[in-house]
């Protein structure tokens, strides 16, 4: 009470504070005013010339130019490259071939058998990517959910474990690949351990199935921390009182999970699923550094195919690479639209 009275009695103090803030504002205004007056003249002129609505485009122009230069122009150039042939990088020196690159990519007796396709490496990459995404996303989202649920409980050293799961996300993909390569190579840590236990080592990265399996594992290990974090945030957003009510009704943990956690977490799950799908389709760097796409083409994914056709091989088939990248972009656009549609449906209840 005394404090309240005191504050009331010392009224000038806060007033003084406001004064200093006002004087700072005044100073800023005094500094800006001349600049604004300079800008005002051409703005008034433009406003009179174009009208208020069209003037908005003048403000948007710098962003539009930059965005156009770095986002739209590459897309347009990509389309142009996809419609041209030859191995010259200069668009002006590339002959127009229409849809030939797309026809080459799509020329298959059976899409289920890459050996029957003209561009068999492309279809091997497509199927590898499809298998990889299915396995990796399924396993990763499952494990991320499990980890998030565990880390959401009141366990000892919860902060430490959260950091442990998130740590691989901070590593560079090349570092991730090299760490696991050192572990899994013929004379790596894992084989040394298996030799020591008497089980005997195995040449993991020379066997196509194992190399693919380890690529999925490596990718899950490297990325699940990110999705765990998102799901953890989703779990923490679920009101506690719903769980308290379920406890009072003596609902079993499994029923609580099925009837409360999963439905209320589904919007977050959806985001995680679509993000993981998009990221999965784009997988390249870590697996490329890990296996180089081998053995044979066992771990060659679609982005590696694009890189090798367009940049690493000879001759450089920019047209074929651009056509393949447009197809990948199409798939990603479809996935994004599905996400938007599902989000809207979920928001509409």
């Amino acid at each position, binding site marked *: 009470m005394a404090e309240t009275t005191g504050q009331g009695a010392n009224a000038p103090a806060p007033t003084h504070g406001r004064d200093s803030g006002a004087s700072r504002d005044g100073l800023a205004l005094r500094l800006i005013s001349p600049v604004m007056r300079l800008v005002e003249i051409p703005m008034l002129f433009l406003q009179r010339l174009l009208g208020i609505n069209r003037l908005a485009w003048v403000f948007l122009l710098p962003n539009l130019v930059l965005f156009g230069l770095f986002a739209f122009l590459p897309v347009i150039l990509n389309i142009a490259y996809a419609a041209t042939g030859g191995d*010259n990088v200069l668009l002006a020196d590339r002959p127009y071939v229409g849809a030939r690159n797309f026809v080459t990519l799509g020329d298959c007796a059976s899409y289920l058998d890459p050996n029957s396709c003209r561009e068999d490496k492309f279809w091997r990459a497509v199927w590898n990517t499809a298998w990889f995404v299915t396995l990796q996303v399924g396993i990763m989202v499952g494990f991320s959910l499990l980890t998030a649920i565990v880390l959401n409980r009141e366990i000892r050293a919860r902060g430490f474990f959260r950091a442990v799961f998130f740590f691989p996300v901070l590593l560079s993909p090349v570092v991730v690949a090299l760490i696991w390569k050192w572990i899994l190579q013929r004379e790596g840590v894992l084989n040394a351990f298996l030799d020591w236990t008497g089980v005997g080592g195995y040449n993991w990265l020379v066997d*196509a199935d194992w190399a693919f399996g380890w690529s999925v594992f490596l990718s899950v290990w490297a990325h699940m921390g990110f999705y765990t974090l998102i799901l953890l945030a989703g779990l923490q957003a679920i009101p506690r009182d719903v769980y308290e009510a379920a406890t009072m009704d003596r609902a079993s943990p499994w029923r609580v999970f099925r009837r409360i956690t999963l439905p209320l977490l589904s919007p977050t799950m959806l985001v995680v699923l679509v993000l993981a799908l998009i990221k999965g389709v784009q997988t390249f760097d870590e697996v490329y550094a890990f296996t180089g796409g081998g053995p*044979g083409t066992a771990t060659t994914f679609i982005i590696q195919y694009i890189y090798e056709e367009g940049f690493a091989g000879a001759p450089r088939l920019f047209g074929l690479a651009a056509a393949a990248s447009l197809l990948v972009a199409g798939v990603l656009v479809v996935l994004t639209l599905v996400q938007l549609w599902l989000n809207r449906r979920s928001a509409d209840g």
Partner: protein
Amino acid sequence: MTQLKLLGTTALVLGLAAPAMAQEIRFMCYSDGNECEVYDDVLTRFEAANPGVDVIVDVVPYQAILENLPVQLAAGTGPDIAKVTDLGGLNQYYLDLTPHIDTGYWDASFGGTLDWYRVGDRQGYYGLHSQLTITGAFANATLFEQAGIEMPGDGATWEDWAAASRAVAEATGTPFPMAIDRSGHRVAGPAISYGAQYFDAEGNGSFAGFEPFAAAFVGWNEDGTFARDVWASQGGATYQDAAQEFINGQLVFYYSGSWQVGRMDSQVGDLFDWQVVGSPCGPAGACSGMPGGAGIVGFEQSQNPEIVAAVIDFLAQEDVYAEVAARTRNLPAHLGVAAAGVEFEGASPAAQAALNAFAGDLANVSPIAFAYQGYAGNRAMFGITVERLSQAIVGELSVEDAVARMGEDLAAAMAESR
């Protein structure tokens, strides 16, 4: 007035300095060992003899030469000079040195290697072959001795070496009997020895006759004669060698090339005895290795073509070339230097003997191998060989299908290049 004089003098100095600064030559260089360092040192003498010329050696990774340089050249932003390995492949950008050099001296000094840089109608003088290499085999003599098995002698076939290496590996508990680098260039010599033609009747690239070698090589990878790790642990056309396995004493017979001598010399030391045994023979009669290496070329887009030509011509002079060959421990492509013999600087007796053995094996190089090295489409063929042969080794394709695919890939690549 004094200030005016000062300003005038400064302007005059800057004006005079400008042309000198314009004579800056950029040399994009990669090293297998100490090549760029030696060039940088040797070129200081050129700079001293040509005041105002500054040759800057930009040391880059080999990958930059393969992937970045062609794009830079296409975009018109390339260096003035570069050390390249895709000899004919970049011909369209090369500066023709003919007006600036003594072509008689170049013909007498470099002979057939000049053709490696020529393509179609462009038949000038483009490249100084600075680093001649030849593929061949290193054998672990200590393992042969421990196993009590005689090393196959001159004229021995691939089959002879495979049998001997398997026996040595078995007797000594060595994990790998044989290995060939994962490279289309490296298997070319053995493939020619098995009957690969590499060219059709019109002189275009071809994989005709490749199948016997492919079948043998895939079989050796299946039965454990060859280290499966080398060809099956990678994808695409990625290069992979087996030098570390040889250096670690885990490999009996290693087919690589003369550029590995320095590495063997410094890293094997006296751990075991090794020797160069040249290229084994094949059923087609040839015992061919594959020549190769790197060369120094200038580019038409340079602002200072005369200086570029002068720099390359300086490096081509016999005394300079001999010094560089000795200091970098590379086989000389300069006929005069080769004839005089090179005392390789700092090379142990084993390395000196190995380099001499490689140089001696040059006589066995098949004309097909020599032509293949100069073929403008060889990089595409090297890549196709590695990709398809690897697929056959891991069982994705049969040998027959792999060779058929090689032909189709080549036809598509050539059509696109045209």
